[in-house]
């Protein structure tokens, strides 16, 4: 029996080989960033290549290990470049977006989950359809509304409003799905005891939905932290750049400060990657649930 079972399975060694090849493909770009970041230089290449390079020279040039390990790039982005300011901007925007977005989404999702009212279906459908509005179509009028009408160009508030509100549909769908799974009996018995709707919402439903609220909040945070193109459009002043716009600034146009870029990218990405790995299970289930529904 065990013999026949083994013949059913592939031998593991070639499988590991294939997986290792793909590990190299996956890790190489990341190691390369680390190499540039710790090289202490602004160049794209890892070592200087002699005029008539041999195979070994070239091999050394693609090995992701810097010629001299140095943390000068990490120091410089904070001392010589306004990167600390950009990180601060990103932090302010992302945290405020999370608070505002989650508050709006929680109340709204609760109503969609618990109350039957005229316009409920239309509201949910409009949230879904709004997800298909192309970003570029929205960006021109949004620019006019935020910058020209409200005068919120290059301000935290403008970007926060845009992020929080355009993120509402996704957050509402995620939270509503979770609220739907909370048994109504709890609320009904509280209602019997004379609790008001607000008390039920804050004392019973929200504490029960803590995991979903946390995931939604972290998701909002990540979206705001990683957003690039709107931030570039709305933030004109260099001092108001967010981290993504700032990183692009290092290597965009005629700037070629790859060392600063790499150091900044490492600092910006590490917390968000850690957060993602920590949350991936929830994100994946949320995404697929959303996909099945809409």
């Amino acid at each position, binding site marked *: 029996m065990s013999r026949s079972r083994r013949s059913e399975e592939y031998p*593991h060694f070639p499988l590991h080989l294939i997986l290792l090849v793909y*590990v190299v493909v996956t890790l190489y770009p990341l190691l390369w960033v680390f190499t540039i970041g710790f090289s202490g230089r602004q160049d794209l290449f890892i070592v200087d290549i002699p005029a008539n390079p041999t195979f070994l020279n070239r*091999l050394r040039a*693609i090995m992701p290990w810097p010629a001299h390990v140095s943390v000068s790039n990490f120091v410089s982005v904070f001392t010589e470049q306004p990167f600390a300011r950009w990180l601060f901007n990103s932090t302010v925007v992302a945290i405020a977006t999370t608070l505002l977005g989650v508050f709006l989404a929680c109340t*709204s999702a609760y109503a969609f989950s618990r*109350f039957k009212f005229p316009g409920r279906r239309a509201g949910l459908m409009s949230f879904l359809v709004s997800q298909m509005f192309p970003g570029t179509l929205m960006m021109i009028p*949004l620019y006019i509304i935020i910058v020209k009408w409200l005068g919120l160009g290059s301000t935290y508030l403008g970007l926060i409003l845009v992020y929080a509100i*355009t993120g509402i549909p996704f957050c509402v769908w995620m939270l509503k799905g979770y609220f739907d799974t909370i048994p109504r009996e709890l609320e009904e018995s509280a209602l019997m005891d004379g609790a008001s*709707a607000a008390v039920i919402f804050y004392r019973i439903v929200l504490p029960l939905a803590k995991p979903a609220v946390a995931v939604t909040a972290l998701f909002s945070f990540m979206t705001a932290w990683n957003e690039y193109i709107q931030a570039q459009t709305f933030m004109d002043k260099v001092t108001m750049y967010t981290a993504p716009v700032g990183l692009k600034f290092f290597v965009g146009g005629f700037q070629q400060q790859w060392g600063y*870029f790499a150091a900044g990218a490492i600092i910006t990405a590490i917390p968000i990657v850690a957060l993602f790995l920590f949350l991936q299970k929830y994100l994946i289930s949320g995404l697929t649930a959303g996909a099945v529904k809409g």
Partner: protein
Amino acid sequence: MTAGPPHRRRFLVGFAAALVLGAALSQWVLTRASERESEFRATRIAVVGASALAEVAGRAGGVGDGLRRAVAEFARDNTEVSSARIVILDGISLEASTAPADRGEKAAPRRLTREEKPLYDQAQGLRAAVETNRQEGTARKPEIETAAVSGRALSAAAPLEKDAAVVGMAMVETTPPPPSPPPGWLFPLLVVAFGVLAYWLATLATGERRGWLAGAACLLLLVAMALLGWHAFATLAGERRLTESGVASAVAIEAGRTQRALRELGQGAAAAPLHPGRWDTDLFRRPFGIVRDDGSVDTAKVESALANGVSSTTRVTGGVTALALALLCFVGFGAAGRLGATIRRYRQAYAYTFPAMFGMLVLVFLPFLYGVVLSFSDMSLYSSQASIGDLFTKLWVGLKNFADVLGDFHVATSTAGGLVWNYQNFYWTLGVTIVWTLTNVAYGVGMGLFLALILNTKGLLFRPIYRVIFILPWAMPNYITALIWKGMFHQQFGVINQIIQMFGGTPVSWFESPGTSLFACIATNAWLSVPFMMVISLGALQSISADLYEAARVDGAGRWQQFRSITLPSLKPALVPAVILSVIWTFNMFNIIYLVSGGDPAHSTEILITQAYKFAFEQYRYGYAAAYSMVIFAILLAYGIWQNKVTKATEGI
């Protein structure tokens, strides 16, 4: 106390509300129009002053003491024109000035100071505008600039021409006539009062019959709105006549000053006859042709222009009337009452949804509607100051933008050197987008499934480690990924060309031909899109019961048969939504294209969404970009509907 019969009371309230709304809106529009007319008047008078000065300076030859004497004579005792300045481009000089600031040490002629550079720039701008318009044979750039100075004063700058070439700028500061007082409230108030009274009397006759109540209300509302419209038109026509006579008297006065100044210059300059009527122009120096050379008004022309203007007043009044009628019906037939009752009944639910809904309305649905309107307009950089009203009138081009996007089939032109592709053509970009999406999704699914199948092998060592490593590209912010790969594809220093050279190849200029450029983008996106598919597939694979395979083996099914009849069908429920989602993601993957290739070379590797962004924010063709985006929206909506059918999605709502 008995409540009045429901229909009658409702219609009375509705009628009153509609009439108040109509009257208030008309009054508001009228006030705005009257303000604009005052501005228009002031601008025209200022333009006349600037043109007259330009004429004097032009005849004086643009330089010298003669010019200064003539300008001084022109500005002497001139109550309309408080100061006159002549700037000459050649030599950057202030050739003549009567401005109080230019006395003593700063008296003309002198070189412009550093702080006065804006004056020089303005003169250069006017020269460029005149030359552009002449070359194009159009009136695209304003040739006269006006600006508010301090208080009500208005400055106007006109190009100074000598021998049909712009050599400088004539600038005047004028004190415009006092603006007309805002239209009074008496007439609209009277209309509202008498209207409501008349309707109340009418309802005594109709009683509770709904048809009669509604008919009478509509009829009276139309009459009242017609009265308000007529009043608005009469007021504006009066204002316009005031404008024409004001401009005409300005022309007559400036003509007199000009004659005086030309006498100062002597016989030669005064030889050619003056045409003061031609000083009254729009900002493109096209004469209105309403004021004659002797300073009288061509009344017939004014009246015919006014007659043409009736239609625009009618359109505005019609719009306001339609709104008022809608309000009347809304209240009169009880919809408002029912809506109010619904809101009261479900006030808790609405209170909970209101903040989010309000935000969505202002920052999602309103911009969307605005974008839709924009797509029917010709808004661009040249009209970026346009108001919303202008979008529906001056800038409205109907379906032209859509015809331009979809109806342009010149994807390629054949020349002697072979086919030349038109990379900004919609169908080229659509083709690139389709190739981009299909390649990426196919690779993502294929590679993701392949890795998942390997990782799902029973008893495989280090599985959690592999999984975490493989998921990293998904966790990385995609703009960072894009910039990293852009660096790796660098022609001179990029790692990828180093590898190619290591094996004896020649380095590739990745972003200089469409094929390699798109390949670089696809490679980047492929790298980051595998993990999503892998994770989804792995989850689905792990949920397949081992018993199924056991049973299949007992039945003698081979490996391939097991894969086809057990693995694939079990993957389907998870993979189909994932593929659908990933198609939309890839289709809209702005960052990768924008940051890796940036569309290079020559926009050949743009996908629809980056191309739309560039039309809007690099070429500033807002209307065209909006129409382009609407087409993208239509494609996504069609896809969404189709996908909805496939997954039977909305059952759960």
